């Protein structure tokens, strides 16, 4: 039970955030090729009439959600239960939103290292480590001001 990877890309398939927690499990494919396949799979799916879950390979299924022009994707083990990861994504986006102040794709482009700071405060080793938005934001604002 763990996140294998976190991915964020826009509608054109340009990767904005990527974090591999478990690269060995993810077949023998090159990560870049996998990202392309994931993008193709997810962008081909109907936003309105299809679920947020799709099986990707013999070891991985994807939980994803689109927020405006950005897709947030998590790769998880087949035996994992999907819905909690949807909450993971939602919380992550909420924290990004509050941290950047109405976040948009460009925030993530220009301040990519701060977006990764958010990610690191939330996820370690494929597990969520903190789920209180207040605690996260307080912590992040301290780190953000440190020289």
């Amino acid at each position, binding site marked *: 039970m763990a996140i294998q990877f976190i991915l964020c890309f826009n509608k054109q398939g340009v990767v904005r955030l990527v974090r591999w927690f478990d690269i060995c499990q993810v077949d023998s494919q090159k990560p870049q090729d996998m990202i392309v396949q994931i993008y193709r799979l997810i962008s081909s799916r109907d936003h309105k009439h299809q679920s947020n*879950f799709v099986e990707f390979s013999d070891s991985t299924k994807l939980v994803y959600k689109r927020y405006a022009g950005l897709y947030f994707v998590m790769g998880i083990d087949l035996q994992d239960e999907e819905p909690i990861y*949807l909450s993971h994504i939602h919380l992550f*986006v909420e924290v990004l939103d509050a941290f950047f102040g109405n976040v948009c794709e460009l925030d993530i482009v220009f301040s990519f*290292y701060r977006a990764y700071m958010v990610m*690191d405060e939330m996820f370690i*080793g494929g597990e969520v*480590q903190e789920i209180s938005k207040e605690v996260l934001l307080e912590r992040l604002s301290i780190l953000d001001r440190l020289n």
Partner: protein
Amino acid sequence: MMDSRKPASNGSSHNYSTTIKGLQLFIADLRSSQYSDEHEKRIQSEIVKIKQQFDSAAKKSANGKDKLGGYQRKKYIAKLAYIYVTSNTTKLNDILFGLDQMLELLASDSFSEKFMAYMTLEFLYEHAIVISKVRDKVTHQLIKDISGSNDNFVALALNFIGVAGKLDIEMSKDDNLTTEVFQILRSPTSTVYLKKKSALAFLTLLKTNPGILIDDPQRKQLWIQRILSLLDDTQNYRLMLAVLPLVEYIAKNIDLECCIRLLRQLTQILYNCVIVGTSNSEKFPSEFKFANVPNPWLITKIVSLLSILIVSPTEANNTSSAVLQSSNIDRETLGKLRMCVTKAIEVGTKSCNDPMERIVLNTILFSLINFASKLDPSPEAISNSVSALCSLLTSAEINIRYLTLDSLVKLCSISGRHAIDTVRYKNLNLIFHILDSERDSSIVRKVVDLLYTFTDSENLQIIVQKLFEYVQSSRHPTDPFIKSDIAVKIAILSEKFAIDAHWYINVSLNLLSLTSNSTLNDDEIWQRLCQIVVNNTSLHQITCEHLVDYLRETHTSEAIVKTGAFLLGEYANLVFEKASVGELFNLFTDKYFTTSNVTRAMILTTIVKLYRFSTAIESVVIKFFQIELNSLDIELQTRSFEYLNFVQLSKLNGNTKLLDVLFSPMPPFNTRSNPLLKRLGSLPSSGYSSTFSESIGSLHGDKDRSTTPPTSFSQASGRPAPPRSRGTKSASINTLASEPMLSSGWEEGFSRMLSHRKGILYTSGFLRVIYRITNPETENLTRLKISLTFINQSELKINGLSTEINAIRTADNPEYVLRNIEPPSSIDVNPRGRSEQSFEVIVRKTFSVIDSPTVKVYFSCGGSTNSIVLKAAIGVTSTITSSAAAKNTISLPQFVTRWKTLREALGDDGEYILEKIQLRRKKSGNPDGEYLRSIYQCISRMGFNIVEQTSVNNTLFIAGIIHTKSEGSFGCLIKLKYDEPKREVSLTCRTTSNGSLAQNISECLKYAISN
């Protein structure tokens, strides 16, 4: 949120000290030239510039002074990181020159600089080349940061381990590093913030190298205890969230038993979340709620851990360490867990408008429903859960439909019959409707999985028909994976459950004819069909006739051509009335040029075989092979050349003797198991699959038919089931004969077990079961350890040996309890090999021997699935004091005095009389007196004292002490009379208890001596 229309003013409006102006400008530059050559030039010029800066910095720092400065260094590294990220890692080699400066930055005392270095290295650790260059220095810095006093640096280092720990296996083998990480986790002075991070960083290291704990038993015990104690504060939800995954990993992969003690604790936490948290009380802190619902993260993690600690009865047979079953969980805990499930169903199925709250409630619902099957739910509870779930199938939310189906698949696979019946009898049409109307292939896949779990011979035809309709319908988007998946499942289900052989052949051929144009790899499907047809003579002709029809069509799928090429090559003679050899030859040569080389090679062989059936086609055959001598494909050319020679040689000899030898009929196939089963992917094994024998094995009809289900394919082909291999002789004991499932021959071992501490419990052509009863504690006679040894008696390997050992009662203050049930030591047993297992019985109260534990043994051997159901005889007499010293200490007068005392004290209540026990044992040539002698020995072996006397003939005076754990010890006296002419025994038993003890003892004696 995620507003894409926000003006693009350099992204963030923040202006903290961390904003790096040069980086922002660089990114803006790159974005403005996104699609032109300028873009690449801009990157290259920046790389050149950074390289110059780094080079001169390296020279200067050799002089001892750092002229570059931390801020500049951070800025350049950030630019390199951006280049790496936006180039989608393709520019790795262009930025490797910066590694030295990254290490420099890593050693900085400034947080933002150190952060930038760690973050960049987190990306680059994906590449082995980077790791090999910087590993030593990075590890050194990690240890320095973790052991230092700056908590923010410790946090950065732990984050890094959490990301990169899995990418560099050496990191987890560094003992200093792992110890430092663990120190933070265990130290009482660490902040919760760091403990959380260290728990997950440690988990990452442990996942990469479990040897951290396994290799050192002392450390393993110590560290695990430390880790588990972190959960002791059941209110510290924040820490718990990070520690639970670590504990789960330990329970799953390192040491399950040490985690068992957490059960009550975890249950309490779950109870607090689910029951207290969903009531309106303020007791559950609101900061741990998400979307107004108690922390779904905590709930799913606890349930996930509990699912590992508790195994369901079905799993208990398969897992190697069946530790906790619902039967040995205390009632309070079990009650709380069940309450949580009920509550989750209640709140999860009620309507609510907020979509986020909805998904959270459903998270909890599905998590707990999937867990519920471990709690030994009643049939009603299962049925209610399934009904609640089915009501969600019509939900407007796509995700909920998906998750509901997923949950149903799990429930049906684990909970079996009751769940399945609720779905198939009440909701089948709804499921067909979803299959028909759903547009999401993820959901369709789950529907197909669900149908698969509950298909049996009864609903096979309708389900297969619906699946066919789906595959053929043009309304559905072509998803080749789904179609392939469905085809495989149709093939498996038809083979497994078809009652009508003709229907099976029709379906299989129809399936093969369908899959022509897809990318489907259907080789396994047609090959499997060929195996079954070859092994069943009655199918030869009908299959071949159908194949001719298919081949006569203009468009024939390649799979059909292959099947036809193989089967008609074998059995062309059976269709002569329908198609002559000449026509068959033409059919195949027509198809020849439209098929792949593999199929062509098969057709070449078919042509030689056809020639065997009728040499009249000689000239066309020779002509055909001659043409193919020019084939570009080496295999086709070789075959044509060889076959041409065969045919010409036959022509020369004037007979087909050589060909008859070379192409003699195919022997039956030995592949027992269906290779298609491997292609089920993630689908949990079907609730039915284990109970049905592999049909191809039973096609031969030479196995013990008592274990073959009535739906087995072999009966469809008209072969009557052979009689049971053994006569049932259990009729003599009516009480037990009413339990239909006991295997014939059980009784002999059962009786033996009452009089012998070890011996044979059961034996058949396949398997012999040997038992041994011991007392693990010499002082505690109510604790019995039963060891079973399974010996393979057959010439074939036994696979999948598993057992199920059940007490007659587990709840309501049971008479005895089973403990420490170890699974069989190996599940595969070679001929004459053995597998062992043990379990313990604690005798708590007096009980009837009829209620002894049942032992079910499952195994497959030579393709047939077998199950044996036995009773392991444990009676009250199994606890008798059997110390040799205590024997013979009672004299006849003493016996008589006690006998009278008992009568006076308890009257009829303590007495039981059993008459006319027939002795069945017949040993020819033994004088009658030997019977009494053997009864004497038998009773003595049971542990009773027998008064040594000669004054009363044909009577035994017996005494013993029965022990129970809850009710204490009881004395008993027995007077046993042997009626020599009638060869009957009658006995009178008196005990110091006025309950059923006397009767229970008498029954034990009856079983022991009558057999």
